[in-house]
């Protein structure tokens, strides 16, 4: 055994131990990350899953013309101002006879959502022959009553219903007059002040239109800028200056772009407030540096041998770029684009300045209608006092995260599939 071997043996144990420690640190770090992720999902899903279903109560509704104050069901004005609440109240009082006093009657009426009234109006509008008839209908419950049924025994004691209201609800529950169904309004309606009627469709459409504008503008401009900078720009100080500035733009806080949007797009160009077009323009400015930087990296990764081969055959610079460089760099550019979009989807701050943080009930029909976006909806609901909005906030977060995870997964899958080995 040589001297070297002896010395090596002495330190060998220590080296292996150091290696094991390093591995352990790595595993620790990943575990912490995964744990955080697990906590996040557990918390959000735990709070949010209850928003996806809702309770309705079965009531015998009589479309009494006297109570409704409607004699002609085809008269639109009468329909609009009909007293549907009275009809619902009557049905409830028929179910729970003997309720005395104004307070008591109000408490009883408060169990059913105001959506019921609108639904009855819709039914009457579509089928005027209903006037005077009686039907058994499943009507949506008010958010407090809905929350009560969704809560556990312990939580029910501290619910926002009075003892009397709780007794009624328990009675309805025991005789199966309430049932749970999928919460359609969550995905078919826009924002509302009543939690049981609030939905995220408005925000989803707003996000969709905003993303559309952002993609349509930032991708072509970003790719073109990257191609120019990589292929055609002369290598001088001015080009370096541009490069430095583009990299710096990527680090600018996003709210600055919002201020820019307010001053230039709304102030100077006079575009309307709160529309996805302006939101898309602002987010384009924000995403552009990301797309330019990732596109440049993709272009740089195209091996020079392909360029040389094409040029050797007599392809012009333009042909080399369009027919070889771009198609080969495209997977990388698309990945960068998707990641940029995913980033933009979750932005709130810049949109705050241009007015997209607002209570908007109507669903937007295009990029020029006032709209809000998903993360903003989350923010607005989180600030509302009603307890049911806590559940709705978590549900909206779940939808937003689904979109983000899908987009990022798509980016990863695309990158894997389109990667070429040189």
């Amino acid at each position, binding site marked *: 055994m040589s001297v070297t071997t002896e010395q090596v043996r002495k330190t060998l144990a220590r080296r292996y131990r150091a290696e094991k420690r390093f591995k352990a640190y790595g595993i620790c770090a990943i575990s912490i990350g995964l744990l955080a992720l697990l906590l996040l999902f557990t918390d959000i899903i735990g709070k949010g899953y209850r928003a996806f279903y809702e309770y309705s109560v079965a009531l015998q509704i009589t479309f009494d013309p006297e109570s409704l104050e409607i004699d002609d069901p085809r008269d639109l004005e009468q329909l*609009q*101002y009909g007293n549907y609440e009275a009809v619902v109240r009557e049905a409830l009082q028929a179910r729970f006879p003997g309720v005395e006093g104004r307070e008591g009657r109000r408490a009883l009426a408060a169990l059913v959502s105001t959506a019921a009234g*609108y639904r009855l109006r819709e039914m009457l509008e579509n089928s005027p022959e209903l006037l005077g008839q009686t039907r058994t209908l499943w009507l949506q419950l008010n958010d407090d009553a809905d929350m009560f049924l969704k809560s556990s025994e312990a939580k029910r004691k*501290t*619910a*926002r219903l009075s003892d009397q209201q709780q007794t009624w609800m328990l009675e309805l529950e025991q005789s199966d007059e309430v049932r749970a169904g999928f919460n359609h309004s969550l995905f078919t309606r826009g924002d*509302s*002040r*009543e939690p049981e009627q609030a939905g995220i469709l408005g925000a989803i459409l707003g996000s969709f239109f905003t993303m559309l504008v952002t993609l349509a503008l930032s991708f072509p401009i970003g790719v073109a800028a990257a191609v120019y900078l990589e292929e055609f720009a002369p290598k001088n100080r001015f080009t370096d200056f541009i490069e430095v500035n583009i990299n710096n733009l990527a680090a600018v806080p996003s709210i600055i772009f919002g201020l820019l949007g307010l001053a230039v797009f*709304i102030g*100077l*160009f*006079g*575009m*309307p*407030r*709160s529309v996805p077009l302006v939101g898309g323009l602002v987010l384009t400015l924000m995403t552009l540096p990301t797309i330019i930087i990732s596109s440049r990296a993709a272009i740089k990764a195209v091996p020079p041998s392909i360029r040389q081969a094409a040029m050797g055959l007599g392809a012009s610079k333009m042909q080399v770029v369009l027919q070889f460089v771009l198609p080969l760099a495209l997977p990388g550019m698309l990945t960068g684009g998707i990641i940029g979009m995913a980033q933009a989807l979750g932005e709130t701050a810049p949109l705050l300045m241009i*007015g997209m*943080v*607002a*209570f*908007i*009930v*109507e669903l937007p029909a295009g990029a*020029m209608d*006032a709209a809000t976006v998903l993360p903003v909806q989350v923010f*607005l609901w*989180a*600030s*509302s*006092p*009603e*307890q049911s909005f*806590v559940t709705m906030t978590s549900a909206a977060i779940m939808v937003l995260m689904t979109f983000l995870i899908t987009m990022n997964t798509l980016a990863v899958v695309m990158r894997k599939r389109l990667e070429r080995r040189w």
Partner: protein
Amino acid sequence: MKNTHKLVLAAALALSSVPAMARDTVSIVGSSTVYPFATVVAERFGRNTSFPTPKIESTGSGGGLKLFCQGVGTQHPDITNASRRMKQSEFELCKSNGVKDITEVQIGYDGLVVANSVKGPDLDISLRDLYLAMAKDVPNPNGTEELVANPYKTWKDVNPALPNVKIEVVGPPPTSGTRDSFNELGVEGGCKTFPWLKAMKDQDKNKYKSVCRSIREDGHYIEAGENDNLIIQKLESSPNILGVFGFSFLDQNRSIVKAVKIKGVSPNMETVGSGEYPMARSMYFYVKKAHVGVIPGIQEYVKEFTNDRAWGDEGYLADKGLIPSPKNERMKWADNAKSLSSMTGKEFE
């Protein structure tokens, strides 16, 4: 490439000279305290009429008035909500930008409550106690008329009748209108009970304001951000902490928090409406007369808001925590709104 350059230039010029685009939805900005009420009215209005639902942004009272006073035109808001009255400086700003005819409407009251968890003790404090517990500088405890940095650590230090619990209050940050109201109604209210401090108001107004409206920064007052839900959550987890927020949040969360009595008075509809409960503030909205008739629905929205079924004692806004003004006042404001009478500028005297 020259042709492309020309094209780009032409497009840029065309874009910049586009006139402000037409709008058919009422645009409202302003206070985050009025927001929960305005949005309910807006939604009802949108559902029950053929007008589109007005768009409402929560920008804060100050921010809203600033936007409102930028000028007349479809890119500027039609109505602004405020949890305090418009200031003279804001009125001047409006005038200088061409916003001359403004209609003021008082909506009702919002109570400012101090609350703790339902699991905590039932407290009854006076405004003086609140001032001594919360202010940055307080009168020297030995009785001389000088100011010292706030030395009180527990509620018992401030008032022996109160429990021996560390002073910890969670409340809104300086950017919030609620904080302004707390400073004015709560802290200043207690400050004024010291005659020599009250006299300072006439001698040195600025010093008076800085003494009577400054909140301590040594950790006993914790700023919780603009989201009142977070304050409620904090109270839920710590029974000894107190929180400051608007009445509507108390109303919606009575299973979690309860109000601290101020001088024996509990905040509710009656006590706030009558003025018995000392920490109440008025809420307003302001209408730009120049936009009426140009943007459809403004007058009809105002009519919906000033109707008793909205802001009356049995109205749907009361269900949401609004404390209605007395009936005769309501009628006065409703008339004001209906006739769109403009502010004269004398309101600030």
